């Protein structure tokens, strides 16, 4: 208390002056309408400005939440898109419902590598969200990778930039099917394997998923052909392409869940057994 009095005494002149100015302004605003209105308008504008700035700052810090909501919405839209594609496809292939059997699970990339020959990533969705090994992972640009293992709340996967990962693809507009594989080196170049020499593949052609194996729905962008050359001493073409996804900037992805997975796996198992016999 003594300190407060000491403080008041030290600044008594300033406080006195402040009091006088307040009285002066009170006199002004109470008796002169123009100044009062201008003051009220000014205070309102400053208040509105502060409110706006506060909102902007708050919104900036809420961006993560907004992004998550947008990712959810995006996943729902992708699901709808898949259903419409299914309807379109069913017009071509009666009875086919392949697209509607895919479900998108939005996730955020928590960790990833791109500098080794066997790159991985971890996402913030796991078994509790419906994720399981061998599910495809995509984003709005194209194929990201395939899940390798799933814990309760997180899952890890092989990035497309993993030299052991091969993805079933086709060249859009042709009947050429093959395997997409990144063989290491530059992240801006990958290989399209098993394309026979008689197939017409041109620079600029789009490579997309074929839908075989049920890991990815058909038509997901994988890359664009950059170079085509006959492979010496082989029946196949050497095709290199630029991957569609910017792997260094991965943030939000979608895990592709195929509803008929068990059925497909059992059939594929039977085929493998028959081949083994």
């Amino acid at each position, binding site marked *: 208390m003594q300190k407060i009095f000491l403080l008041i005494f030290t600044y*008594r*002149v300033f406080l*006195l*002056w402040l009091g*006088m*100015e307040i*009285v*002066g*302004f009170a*006199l*002004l*605003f*109470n*008796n*002169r309408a*123009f*100044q009062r209105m*201008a*003051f009220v308008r000014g205070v309102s504008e400053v208040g509105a400005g502060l409110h706006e700035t506060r909102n902007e700052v708050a919104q900036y810090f809420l961006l993560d939440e907004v992004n998550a909501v947008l990712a959810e919405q995006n996943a729902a839209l992708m699901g709808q898109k898949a259903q419409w594609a299914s309807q379109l496809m069913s017009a071509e292939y009666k009875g086919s419902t392949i697209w509607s059997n895919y479900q998108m699970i939005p996730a955020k990339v928590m960790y990833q590598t791109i500098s080794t020959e066997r790159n991985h990533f971890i996402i913030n969705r796991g078994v509790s969200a419906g994720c399981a090994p061998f599910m495809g992972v995509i984003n709005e640009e194209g194929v990201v990778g395939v899940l390798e293992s799933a814990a309760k709340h997180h899952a890890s996967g092989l990035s497309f930039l993993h030299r052991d990962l091969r993805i079933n693809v086709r060249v859009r507009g042709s009947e050429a099917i093959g395997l997409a594989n990144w063989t290491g080196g530059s992240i801006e170049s990958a290989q399209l394997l098993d394309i026979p020499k008689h197939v017409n593949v041109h620079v600029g052609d789009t490579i997309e998923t074929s839908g075989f194996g049920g890991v990815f729905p058909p038509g997901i962008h994988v890359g664009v052909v950059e170079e085509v050359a006959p492979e010496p001493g082989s029946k196949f073409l050497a095709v290199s392409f630029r991957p569609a996804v910017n792997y260094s900037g991965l943030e939000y992805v979608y895990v592709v869940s195929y509803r008929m997975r068990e059925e497909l796996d059992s059939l594929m198992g039977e085929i493998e057994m028959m081949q083994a016999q």
Partner: protein
Amino acid sequence: MNIKFSDIIGLAGILIAQLMLLDYMTIGAVLFPWLFALPLASLPLRMDKSLLLFIAFALGFIYDVVTLSYGPHTIALPLLIMLRPAVVGLFTFRGGAEIERMTLGELGLVKFLFYLFVFAWIHQFTALAIDYFSIAGLFKALIRGFGGALYSVGLYTGFKLIFQRSSR
């Protein structure tokens, strides 16, 4: 050094003169001869600042209430007192430590007139800016305050010379 009774009488006299006579000497409703603040410039430099503030506030308040201007001078004069040491510092060494009052005799004519002019300009600018109460009005207050300060200092000096001569 404290305020003299004659200072109070002088302040009251100039305030009455301001209200009765000087307010009718406005040029074109643009240049205002607000002389009543100028004696504050010559009050003792080392007098109690709280008392000085009270005097300035009372002068401004009475003038505002009587002329129904409500506020500009009540605000401007205490501000002027707060700025007075800085203005004194512009015209003296060591903030006027060797001077008791800022008078014509202490400063010399030119310096004293400049000192009064700056003092008057601050008063005029503040009061006019509060009167216009807008950003656009600030420039107008600056220019009109300049003219008003020149006019006020001219009149004040003229009156002072006349009174000094007649008292001799």
